[in-house]
């Protein structure tokens, strides 16, 4: 029921790039304030520190640094909020969180560069048979 209720609340589109940028910072603050409870829920004290998690979140946001379309930013923010909600509501298991945000940078997560120019065929060609 919580998931259904949350799905209804979609924020209105940003009127300008500045507003979208503002919302990105709000989302980052919200995610950072959730880090202590996330570490408590998933018992992550042994494998990561809050500052490392904060840096990982910042890195994820910085991946989309070049996006300038407010509509795209809104869509990405919606996906980010969904992911944060899934984590805080315990819809993931501990190894999912560890695999994606703790050790993911060391080979578990395929980090596709967001290349705007390549065609889908070339992207899949470079990626080969991964996943």
């Amino acid at each position, binding site marked *: 029921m919580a998931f259904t209720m949350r799905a209804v609340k979609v924020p209105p589109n940003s009127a300008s790039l500045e507003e979208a*940028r503002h919302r*990105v*910072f*709000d989302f*980052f*603050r919200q995610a*950072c*304030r959730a880090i*202590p409870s996330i*570490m*408590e829920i998933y018992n992550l*004290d*042994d494998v990561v*520190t*809050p*500052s490392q998690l*904060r*840096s990982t979140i*910042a890195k994820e*946001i*910085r991946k989309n640094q070049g996006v300038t379309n407010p509509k795209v930013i809104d869509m990405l923010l919606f996906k980010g909020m969904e992911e944060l909600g899934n984590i805080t509501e315990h819809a993931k298991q501990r190894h999912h969180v560890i695999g994606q945000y703790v050790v993911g940078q060391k080979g578990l997560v395929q980090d596709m560069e967001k290349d705007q120019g390549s065609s889908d065929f070339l992207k899949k060609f470079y990626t080969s048979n991964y996943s």
Partner: protein
Amino acid sequence: MAAPITAATSPLSPASRVQVMCSMLNPTSASFSRQTASFPSIRLRPVPSRFQALSCSAKQDTIDKVCEIVKNQLAVDEGTAVSGETKFVDLGADSLDTVEIVMGLEEAFQITVDESSAQVIQTVEDAAVLIDKLVAEKDA
């Protein structure tokens, strides 16, 4: 010196307190156990009067601590001089880095910086002044 501040600020749950100790001291597992063992003795001390004395002269301490956190966050060379007048932008921080620094300071000092205040923070001095004000408000 950090531990009395932690004990005095708020009655955190054990898990949160452990997290705070972990993030502030960054110990290994072995020293982590030792810190946990020594925590009750810290709590039994007459913290309020000592904390008041500490907060009266916290200005330079706050700036030094802020400089340390900024250095860690931005991975600045140890030789780089970070003083109260240093701008985050001069150290190579973008807007997201600045927000990240503010969140790190929130965690280290156990305060909550509201959005409008966070936007005006551009130098170490700004951050230290705001932190001193917020810590004083919380103790009042």
